[in-house]
């Protein structure tokens, strides 16, 4: 063992370069493709020898799909390490930058899931007496079925039966039975009509009070705090980028700043649309596609049902593109990363509160109105909301955990620098 370092003992095992046969062009192309998984600095150091190993493996019939998957996995890991996303091999500021980008994407991922939740849970806590029921009543009173029912109740036949029943003074008499059956048939026909069914469905809704309302409010406030944190972080980053880069090379930051501005405008529009969206009667317009059709046909009554999701999506997508571009194009000072880490830590706390409150809200609401997951608003396109809700909750938990870990990593990276 002690003589291992001795050069005299060095012996090459395997084929020497002179013995290497000319490479098949297809193998060469595959090797070249596989090597692209790795970052440039890694390729610079290990590229040539790695190419040789790959070419030998493939030539010897060991170039299976497993080899490709192994190279892809290691290549991606190497890229993530090189960019500072995992491990401690990258420089401190690279790691801090990677942490901030991760945090940024994770928080916006969380907000996307809450936007989806906000869209689909509309009306879960409203009292049907105030909105749904009054709408259903109005629809029922205008329906043909109700008109027929009224005409039946005012018909000479009905009045004659009523007269005979009252005159009999006996609830078990034949006259009473015929009168009762006539009335029941008319009522059943009305209940079975579309308007009658809608009215009865509206009657079955349960208004939420107490615990669910409180947890929903807590969840809203926590989400607003997280939005506030990310807004402050973005404003600060944009300001720092302008200060550092504007006089040097402003072209690098103009596009990201444009994306961020568009995101801010979309956010304001989306917030306004959300307020208007809440005022649309429950169960209307039925589906997003229906609202879009009417909008294109010039009927703007349900515009928030289309504008809110579009603006929320645009705001988040533009913020991700602009924010990530800005973070990658500008070399910020350690104090900027420190502030980002601090804001992310606050956001992480808010996100955890939001997740817990949302779960408690759903649980308490479920206890209070057991049918709301399947009956409220007819669910997603008339089906159960449970799959959407499950995905949203998983995304919320995953992203908030990423923010907790990422903020700690960011603060640890820049500590003392």
């Amino acid at each position, binding site marked *: *063992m002690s003589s*291992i370092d001795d050069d005299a*003992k*060095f012996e090459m*095992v395997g084929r020497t370069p002179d013995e290497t046969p000319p490479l098949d062009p297809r193998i060469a192309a595959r090797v070249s493709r596989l090597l692209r998984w790795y970052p440039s600095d890694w390729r610079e150091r290990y590229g040539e*020898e*790695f190419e040789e*190993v790959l070419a030998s493996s493939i030539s010897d019939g060991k170039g299976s799909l497993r080899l490709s998957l192994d190279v892809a996995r290691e290549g991606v890991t190497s890229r993530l390490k090189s960019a500072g996303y995992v491990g401690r091999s990258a420089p401190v500021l690279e790691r801090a930058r990677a942490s901030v980008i991760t945090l940024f994407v994770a928080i916006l991922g969380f907000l996307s899931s809450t936007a989806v939740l906000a869209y689909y849970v509309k009306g879960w806590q409203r009292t049907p007496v105030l909105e749904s029921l009054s709408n259903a009543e109005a629809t029922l009173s205008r329906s043909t079925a109700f008109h027929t029912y009224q005409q039946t109740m005012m018909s000479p036949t009905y009045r004659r039966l009523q007269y005979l029943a009252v005159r009999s003074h006996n609830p078990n008499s034949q006259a009473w039975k015929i009168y009762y059956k006539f009335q029941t048939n008319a009522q059943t026909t009305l209940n079975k009509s579309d308007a009658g069914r809608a009215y009865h469905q509206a009657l079955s809704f349960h208004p939420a009070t107490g615990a669910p309302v409180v947890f929903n409010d807590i969840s809203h406030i926590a989400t607003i705090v997280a939005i506030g944190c990310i807004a402050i972080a973005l404003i600060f980053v944009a300001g720092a980028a302008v200060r550092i880069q504007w006089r040097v090379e402003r072209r690098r930051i103009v596009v990201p700043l444009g994306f961020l501005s568009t995101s801010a405008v979309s956010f304001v529009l989306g917030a306004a649309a959300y307020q208007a969206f809440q005022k649309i009667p429950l169960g209307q317009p039925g589906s997003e596609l229906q609202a879009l059709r009417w909008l294109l046909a010039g009927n703007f009554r349900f515009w928030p049902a289309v504008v809110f999701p579009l603006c929320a999506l645009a705001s988040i997508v533009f913020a991700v593109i602009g924010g990530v571009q800005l973070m990658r194009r500008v070399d910020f000072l350690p104090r900027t990363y420190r502030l980002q880490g601090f804001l992310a830590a606050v956001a992480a706390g808010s996100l955890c509160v939001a997740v817990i409150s949302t779960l408690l809200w759903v649980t308490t609401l479920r206890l209070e109105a057991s049918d709301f997951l399947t009956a409220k608003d007819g669910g997603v396109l008339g089906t159960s909301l449970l799959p959407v809700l499950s995905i949203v909750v998983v995304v919320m938990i995953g992203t908030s955990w990423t923010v907790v870990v990422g903020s700690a990593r960011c603060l640890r990276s820049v500590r003392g620098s």
Partner: protein
Amino acid sequence: MNSTFGDLGHYAGPATLILSSLAGGSKHGYALTQDIEDFSGVHLQPGTLYGAIQRLEKQGLIEPLDDESRRRPYRLTALGASVLQDHLKAQQQASNVGLQRLSTGGSIA
């Protein structure tokens, strides 16, 4: 010693094989995979091999040799030899205890 191997994470297994292979003489990448397959029956994929090589080199357990060819050979350093020896001794001790307990057949169902 153990912390050195602990730092290798999921490369600890491949690292032991690579160091054991290099204990028999310096080798380049593909020769390492062939040798490891011969003595252990484990086929190390190129990605895993170079992930481990990179770690071992960074920890100073192996070092590349100057070579004009595209196949750069690696050799074990003195530190690498010492770490490998300690690690294998610990593994041998664990193996001996396990084998001894199996031979007595104390709690086999």
